[in-house]
């Protein structure tokens, strides 16, 4: 066995060009697929993270039924969950903020529109989600001006109001208590999402609690964590340690099924691309294997004439192929790791258009991101190994019907 290994090792270096062809094909396959994976995973992660951190944040603690049935009856009590305790027990929680979300009819003198009414904690909201852009001067909410609200920019235009005007808000609050209140429009919210800008009103948590007649209650506790990819695990861990039965922890995948599905759709769509790419690469590996076999017919004839058994020769060929493939995979991983290590630090910036897109909409990715996580090598290594195993079948079958005399005469 050891002799076979030695023989195979010498064989592959005897004809370097031939070795380079197969090893090169494998190397190239590994590099191409893992780089494609790297940019695909990396860019999607970056996009998901930016959307997640703009809108829902990674996790939310809600009443167990709030997500399916968004009604104020499914709300939580401030006293039941202590944020500081929570953060102490789970150091991966980076920031936390409470929200109260309900619906109402917002009217100006001339028109009215249905709106999502968000009561947010003016201090902590910007640390968990950036969508409302509460950091600019005109949109800073403070607790000492409870009668001030922010309106979605499109909604304000449709209602014909500008900052300084007032609006009347009608709601059906907690336990169906009707609420009516007059507010001064303090500023406008531009999220970049037309649906939101058309139907959103933002105010402080306390003001919303008054409006919906539910002091001390809220609907969502928004948690920013250190990483969005582990949200599901974090959600499970957190939920198991919550003191109260009346709360569920939902990861962003549940809060924003659209985003999660968009990625699945894209993954599925890329699968088609990989099918074609693998077809091409598999063909290439098979081709070089078959060719190097054909090239060596005469050599095998000589070996047989000297008494080597066909099974031994096919073993030798298989061993050589395995070595070439392993060399190719190894070199491919090393080179990819190097390239990815350089690219992972800074994204490749997209064209100016894409940057404008970023400015306009506040999300979407501004570049192509590469990830260096090990899972990018899974598909190339598995696929190339399987294809190499399949192409080994050819020389082994061929050896069975090998006629030494004819082989010796082959040119």
């Amino acid at each position: 066995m050891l002799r076979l290994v030695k023989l195979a090792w010498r064989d592959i270096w005897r004809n370097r060009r031939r070795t380079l062809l197969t090893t090169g094909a494998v190397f190239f396959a590994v590099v191409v697929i893992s780089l494609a994976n790297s940019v695909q995973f990396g860019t999607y992660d970056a996009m998901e993270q930016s959307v997640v951190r703009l809108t829902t944040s990674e996790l939310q603690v809600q009443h167990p039924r709030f997500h399916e049935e968004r009604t104020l009856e499914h709300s939580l009590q401030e006293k039941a969950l202590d944020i500081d305790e929570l953060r102490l027990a789970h150091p991966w929680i980076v920031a936390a903020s409470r929200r109260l979300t309900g619906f109402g009819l917002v009217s100006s003198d001339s028109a009215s529109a249905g709106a999502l009414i968000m009561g947010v904690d003016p201090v902590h909201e910007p640390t968990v989600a950036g969508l409302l852009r509460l950091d600019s001067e005109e949109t800073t909410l403070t607790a000492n001006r409870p009668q001030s609200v922010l309106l979605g920019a499109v909604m304000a235009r449709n209602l014909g109001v500008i900052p300084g005007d007032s609006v009347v808000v009608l709601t059906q609050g907690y336990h169906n208590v009707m609420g009516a209140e007059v507010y001064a429009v303090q500023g406008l919210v531009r999220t970049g999402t037309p649906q939101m800008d058309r139907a959103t009103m933002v105010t402080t948590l306390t003001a919303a609690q008054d409006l919906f007649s539910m002091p001390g209650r809220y609907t969502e506790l928004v948690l920013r964590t250190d990483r969005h990819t582990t949200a599901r695990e974090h959600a499970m861990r957190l939920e198991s340690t919550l003191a109260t039965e009346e709360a569920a922890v939902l990861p962003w995948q549940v809060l924003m099924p659209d985003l999660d599905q968009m990625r699945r759709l894209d993954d599925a769509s890329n699968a088609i691309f990989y099918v074609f790419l693998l077809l091409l690469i598999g063909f290439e590996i098979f081709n070089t294997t078959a060719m190097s076999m054909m090239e060596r017919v005469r050599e095998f004839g000589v070996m047989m004439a000297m008494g080597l058994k066909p099974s031994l020769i096919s073993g030798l060929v298989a061993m050589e192929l395995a070595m070439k493939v392993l060399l190719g995979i190894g070199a491919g991983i090393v080179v990819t790791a190097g390239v990815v290590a350089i690219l992972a630090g800074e994204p490749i910036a997209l064209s100016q258009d894409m940057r404008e897109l970023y400015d306009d909409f506040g999300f979407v990715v501004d570049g192509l991101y590469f990830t260096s996580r090990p899972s990018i090598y899974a598909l190339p290594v598995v696929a190339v190994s399987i294809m190499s195993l399949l192409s080994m079948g050819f020389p082994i079958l061929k050896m069975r019907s090998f006629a030494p005399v004819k082989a010796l005469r082959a040119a």
Partner: protein
Amino acid sequence: MIFVKIAWRSIWRNPRRSWVLISAVAVGVFAFIGVVAYLDGMSMQLVKSAVELQGGHIQVAGHGYFENPAVRTQVRQMPQVATILKDASASDVRYASQIRAAGMISSAEHSAGIAIVGVDPVQEQQVSPVPSLVTEGGWLTDDPAAGEVILGAALAEQLGVRLRERIVLMVSDLDGAVNSGAYRIRGLFTTSSRAFERSTVLLHQEEVRTLVGFARDAVSTVAVNIDPGQEVLAVAATLRAALVGMDVEVLTWMDRSPMLVMMDRMMNLVNVILVVILFSAIGFTLINSFIMVIFERIREIGIMAAGGVRPGQVRLLLFLEAAFIVVVGAAVGIAMAAALITWWSEVGLDLSSFAEGLSRFGAGAVIYPRVVLENMVTGFVMIFVMVFLAVLYPAIKASRFKVVDAMNHV
């Protein structure tokens, strides 16, 4: 001329070797056509389903409606507009008029802000994907007093209502008075966009007309869809010219949804990257195969040289052989790809069978390949160039061998 003959014979002299090359070209061409047709089909599909959901390829609305979709901004002479739409376009333009108003929907327990859309049940089926996306119950009947609505499954869930239950719609009419009406849920639709599903309620146009107080011939918008062969901008320009004097605006989906345009561009960018990756793989395969095969023939080339064939002629011969192989290979590849695409165009490729959780995309997840001629031509030019480069190096090398060395090469 003699070299053409020699080249042709020489590729069939050793069929095994030639088939290796031909199949390399064929698989390359096949993969490239498959991928490009798929990518073109996919980006069109995603844009198409999003556009059709959001009011059609072209939208005709009252002047200023896009800026401020107020109920007072209307297309006031719908019958005339309809006549113009039919006359102005040579092939059949499909259109559907709608009356839109912002309002509130309430069930026994909950309420939500929504867009109320009054549709013509018959026209709507030719333009919007919503009628085909009704997954529970049925689409609206053409009965202007049926008192029935269609809403998104997500909205129904949110309101806690089911099929055949009653909901109340509240809307302020043209005079600012709040009107309301009770309706029975006839059907629920599911789309790829939860936002759309949660914010849209459809009912018969005449019921909304009464509720909001629109005049007999007035509507809010007209969604116009064109056939795949037509150019959106050109049709929009024709319609704009024909509708002058009607006090309406004509907007394409590109005007209305910069987000979709960006998504479209973003997707094209990603597609370009994928195609570059694919082509580098094709190029590698071709270069690899050609180098391998030519180096196999060193001895043969030595003998030719000994027989008096000059280096330039050796190169010419190798290029001619390569040209034949590319032509044959491309023909085989095109034939294979044509078969694939024909079959694929019929059945479509349902992405939801590749990944879990995509069922709600419905028809939106079924991709049909699309052959864009210019993309295909670009691809072929690139394949020819790559083969040329693949042959260049070994051909130069082979033509410069020392005759004796080459003949002794094993």
